[in-house]
């Protein structure tokens, strides 16, 4: 499960894209019982993740709760139902993983410092530029434990869509945002039949893991539509 890896983009664009993933391993009972009730620790986790303006955040109560910046209920469709940040932070359950997406490293640093202090025992993985993430670790008093490096895409790469489309599609690691939907959104922005915020949400809500960065997505859509 490597869904927060392989996000494409330029040096500058990736400066605005960090995914903080939290996981409790099903096979490690000691992590579930570390320092008391897991539900209390999960609740605290959501509060910390929510405090520093994530552009995406998901949690679980009886249902999966998904917050994405710009997503208004009028764009709900199918299984894709929007939630507010308070609705997410009221959750006390966690699916196998939960995520928060941020657009600046200062926010991630503050989140990591708070998580270090809270000592929740939950494993945390940050996806983003290694130089930035290592700097964040240093400033937060943390030591990187293990890395997962992307060596890119191999094989019949001529079958891939153009870079501008891939930068948007690869923000969903399970690849359920199709190139045709990206191309449709770009075309509609050009025609003026949808604005870039709504187009970013239409793409982002297809990613049920909720790791699509709608702020970065909007900027990429605007740039491509202008080109």
């Amino acid at each position, binding site marked *: *499960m*490597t869904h927060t*890896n*392989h996000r494409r*983009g330029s*040096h500058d664009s990736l400066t605005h894209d960090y995914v903080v993933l939290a*996981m*409790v*391993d*099903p*096979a490690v009972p000691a*992590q579930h019982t*570390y320092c008391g009730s897991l539900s209390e620790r999960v609740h605290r986790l959501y509060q910390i993740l929510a405090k520093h303006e994530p552009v995406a955040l998901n949690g679980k109560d009886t249902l999966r709760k998904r917050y994405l910046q710009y997503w208004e209920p009028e764009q709900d*469709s*199918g*299984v*894709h139902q929007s939630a507010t940040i308070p609705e997410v932070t009221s959750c006390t359950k966690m*699916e*196998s993983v939960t995520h928060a997406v941020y657009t600046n490293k200062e926010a991630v640093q503050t989140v990591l410092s708070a*998580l*270090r202090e809270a000592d*929740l*025992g*939950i*494993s*945390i*993985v*940050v*996806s983003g*530029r*290694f130089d930035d*993430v*290592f700097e964040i670790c240093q400033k937060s008093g*943390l*030591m*990187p*434990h*293990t*890395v*997962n*490096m*992307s*060596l*890119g*895409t*191999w*094989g*019949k790469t001529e079958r*891939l869509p153009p870079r501008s489309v891939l930068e948007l*599609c690869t923000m969903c*690691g*399970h*690849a*359920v*945002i*199709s190139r*045709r*939907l990206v191309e449709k959104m770009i075309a509609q922005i050009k025609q003026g039949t949808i604005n870039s915020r709504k187009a970013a949400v239409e793409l982002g809500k*297809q990613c*049920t893991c909720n790791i699509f960065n709608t702020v970065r997505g909007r900027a990429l859509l605007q740039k491509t539509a202008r080109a």
Partner: protein
Amino acid sequence: MQIDENKCIKCQTCFPYCPVDAIQIGRAGVFIDQNLCVECAACLKSGACAEQAIYQPTLKWPRILRAQFSDPLVTHPITGISGRGTAEMKTNDVTKRFIEGELGFAIEVGRPGISTSFADVEQIAQALASHVEFEPLNPVTRLLDPETGKFRDEIILNERVLSAIIECKTTVSQGLSVLHRLKTVASTLETVFSLCVISRCQGFDIPFKGVMEAAGFHPRMNGKTNVGLGRPLQ
């Protein structure tokens, strides 16, 4: 996935929601190409069809594999978690799945968005068998003979999935050999794969990164970092 032709009004609104272009229109109307469809259910979940003409019939073996590997909301019966692989390095601080001196590889065949047959997955697994240790909890491994890299049941070879992840590990000293094997097999595939290399850190250093770069394999500037907050720490 299937389309109920009695409900479909041929508006084609659902077309762009399919990641593999399986929804098509012919003389008889709109249909889903059953060979291309990977059962990810993205079309159904999108709510694009106002007529509720899209539905998922009960899937049987081996077609059920398509949904298990393609739909992120389906909890995989092998791993017990949603998604196509294991926790890999995400919880390495508490599992010690990868210790110092070892490297992990995650070869996600079909990603991003091209999809794959299990025949292509098998080609890669065969190229790596006997040179790596396949991850025992990984869904692809459970279908393989780890000695040969061949799937135990040939019937699955033509099944298509959005992606399937081969997870394995080897020693640092064998790492470049694995990369060269992957480079060779990559040229024989009908699809693509996205490649991950997992390594323990030594302080703020990633020793194998320099080894790869010296050999012409250049990691991207961004990736995943486990920051060591899991407890009890291993």
